[in-house]
């Protein structure tokens, strides 16, 4: 093979995840490594990858213990994959496993590898709890001490306040505001109503429930610890029930006059793991695996939320137009839209921004609005509001779900299908991906 053979297609061959659980639920006390190993074991079993030496397993976690520096490697070693399969750990907040997918895709496209797994895991139930920076330094000084006297001296400087454990920071380091509080400001700015948010949340539950009932997830999810569906899923919820919940975000921001974001229209803290199997066309054919979709392109963007110029979770609103332009597509040319539901209002502000002449002119520097999308094509198999959102596992869930949707629809209609994945991430970032169906 010569270099002129590349880039070649990177294909999504399938996926597997464990059902997502609410933090403190059935996976409490289960480590990231346990969950990621389980997701990979299910993938290996489903696609008969026992003993396979893959090109790479790329994975990551957002809430990661210091001891888990080789989390992906340790997890892969716990599976029947060939132990000589290389791995890499990556991290980009909620976009982590979308980025691991892009990484594996790029390497396949360039011919550096023929196959790989993109994966991610997170446990809000087993997140790292650290000691205060002062105590850490005192302890290091004590460990480095040469005499007992020096050690005693170091320890004697510890104050009671140093002993308080430090849980992971629930907020943006540069603003001190939580993600929900940030989004509440964006929600208010864009005038997104409570009703619209609750309707989106209800639809997410209903669509995820219907997809499970139809067996859509039979070959995407492997039961774990007695859980066979996402624990957060409430297909029988109603607008009344959702409407009765008290707002939890926006309550601390004076600029938010009517807080509307509740536990019902925001994703809960979750535990879970996901994985996506990828390969070149030849690699798939040699193993009799059916390609579902190919990775067309990807973009990322970041916004200046620190100075209040843009909302924290608005980066995808910038990344998507760039992705579409690069591929000569209009927003309406897509058949499926997978827009990560960090909060119902994240999806709604993003859509509203694309519908806004002003935003598209002033912020995106375009001639006019991108326009609206056919809502029937949005998150058709449910999304994070219903499934839950273990940060680094969400990208893998979206990729496998969309790839299967594209393949199914293309097989039915005989027409090539295109789908978009858009994921917002902490620190004002966003990653977006374009997939296209593959059929025999």
């Amino acid at each position, binding site marked *: 093979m010569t270099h002129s053979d590349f880039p070649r297609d990177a294909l999504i061959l399938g996926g597997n995840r464990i059902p997502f659980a609410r933090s403190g639920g059935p996976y409490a006390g289960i480590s990231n490594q346990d969950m990621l190993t389980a997701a990979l074991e299910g993938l290996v*079993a489903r696609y008969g990858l026992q003993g396979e030496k893959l090109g790479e397993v790329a994975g990551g976690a957002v809430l990661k213990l210091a001891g888990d520096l080789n989390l992906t490697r340790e997890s892969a070693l716990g599976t029947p994959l060939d132990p000589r399969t290389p791995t890499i750990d990556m991290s980009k907040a909620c976009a982590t496993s979308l980025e691991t997918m892009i990484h594996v895709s790029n390497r396949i496209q360039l011919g550096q590898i023929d196959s790989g797994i993109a994966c991610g895991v997170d446990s809000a139930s087993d997140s790292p709890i650290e000691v205060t920076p002062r105590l850490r330094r005192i302890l290091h000084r004590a460990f480095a001490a040469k005499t007992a006297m020096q050690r005693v001296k170091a320890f004697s400087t510890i104050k009671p306040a140093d002993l308080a454990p430090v849980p992971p920071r629930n907020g943006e380091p540069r603003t001190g505001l939580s993600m929900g509080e940030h989004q509440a400001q964006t929600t208010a700015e864009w005038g997104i109503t409570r009703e619209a948010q609750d309707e989106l949340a209800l639809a997410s539950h209903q669509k995820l429930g219907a997809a499970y009932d139809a067996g859509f997830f*039979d070959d995407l999810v*492997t*039961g*774990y610890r007695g859980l066979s569906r996402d624990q957060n899923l409430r297909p029988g919820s109603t607008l009344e029930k959702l409407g009765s919940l008290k707002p939890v975000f926006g309550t601390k921001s004076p600029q938010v006059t009517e807080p509307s974001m509740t536990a019902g229209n925001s994703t809960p803290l979750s535990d879970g793991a996901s994985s996506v199997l990828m390969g070149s066309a030849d690699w798939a054919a040699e193993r009799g695996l059916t390609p579902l979709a190919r990775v067309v392109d990807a973009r990322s963007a970041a916004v200046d939320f620190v100075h209040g110029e843009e909302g924290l979770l608005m980066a995808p609103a910038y990344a998507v137009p760039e992705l579409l332009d690069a591929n000569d597509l209009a927003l309406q040319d897509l058949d499926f839209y997978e827009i990560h539901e960090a909060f119902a209002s994240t999806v709604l502000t993003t859509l509203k921004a694309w519908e806004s002449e002003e935003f598209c002119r002033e912020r995106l520097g375009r001639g006019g609005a991108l326009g609206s999308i056919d809502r029937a094509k949005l998150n058709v198999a449910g999304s994070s509001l219903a499934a839950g959102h273990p940060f680094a596992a969400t990208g893998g869930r979206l990729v496998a779900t969309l790839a299967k949707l594209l393949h199914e629809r293309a097989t039915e209609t005989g027409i090539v299908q295109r789908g978009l994945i858009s994921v917002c991430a902490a620190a004002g970032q966003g990653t977006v991906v374009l997939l296209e169906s593959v059929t025999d």
Partner: protein
Amino acid sequence: MTDAYTRFIRSAPGGALAKQLGLPRPSRLLRREDRPEPVLGPVVVLGASAGADQIAHQLLEEGADVRRRFEELRRVGSVIVVLDEIASPAEIGPIMLPLAGAMRTLAPGARVVTISRPAGDAEPSRAAARGGVEGFLRSLAHEMRGGGTANGVLLEDGVAVDAPGAIGALRFFLSARSAFITGQFLTVSSEAGSATENRSLPLAGRTALVTGAARGIGAAIARTLAADGAKLVVLDVPGAGTELSRLANELHAVPIQLDVTSQGAGERLVSSLREKGLALDAVVLNAGITRDKLLANMTPERWDPVLAVNISSQITLTEALIEAGDVLGEQPRVVSLASTSGIAGNRGQTNYATSKAGVIAFVDALATQLEDLGGTANAVAPGFIETEMTAKMPALTREVARRANSLQQGGLPVDVAEAIAFLCSAEAGGIRGETLRVCGQNMVGK
């Protein structure tokens, strides 16, 4: 897997105490890995019929140490009593009585197998003779020691002693694979089936589905069938998906997550099989649950799921597999899990026993239906088996249940699996609608 009592009894002081007090002293059962040879020799073939000669020749050809008399033998491994031509009860004694003097020479784990014919509609004298064999064998099984077993092969009239099913059943009873089966008969009703070519991998080239495979007896069945060379499709509920994946990875099996009681489960199974290009040569319907309560406390919540999983799902799955027309192999074998509770009934198990008695009748009817496809259906009825489920029984109840059989111990999941592996084999084609008990001759029912 050995229980605490048995460990104690096997110690020197424990053994002495048990002897003094007349307590049960269970012997260690020899299983496949303990006794790999197919026939424990020397093997004595009793009987003067042409069939007896045929059996003796067959075993000789296979390299067994075959004798026709006990004289001078200090130790006997196996005894085959061929009674296929007896016409009156008086003929049993002369053939069988030489065994009396040899009982004390039987080796640990010895095997006695009778070969006779079911009474059927034979004339009165012949029927009495044939029926008599049953009483003889069941009593003998109670008298066997050292983990020895006694079982019988019943050949319908017209079935030759060297028919594939006859030889298959004989070999199974002689082998260590039938360690926890004693006092049982297996009827061979036709000469269908074919001899096993690859003795060490009897299921090579065959594909088998096991439902409820993620753990317990189901996992043991999958492992045993895989060890016998079968390609496995393992099925369990989605909630047990990760355990199922691990088993699939271990056995290089195809996992299918499916709730067998769900709407359209049969169609989903069929489409999964088609998608993967699989045709099943064996279907093991193992998925089962218990929800025990006295009838006085029985509710639909406890009754319905037991019936749904244990019997209704078997009906819908087999119907879908047969109707599909392209997902079963040439000579399909269906083996279903019954229970001794389905034979004798059990206090607190009206729901379970209903479902399991249903299974026993179901396989008989299904066997008739499968005949046209060259297939057959049978059931295995486990007695007390050491599993996670029985480990949760109250200690005293468990201890009583465990000892209430001729072998004075609980069986292992692998014992059930071995019986199923045999019924899935090519040889078992002539065995139809049977329910084989794997219970150590449990004191309940037949």
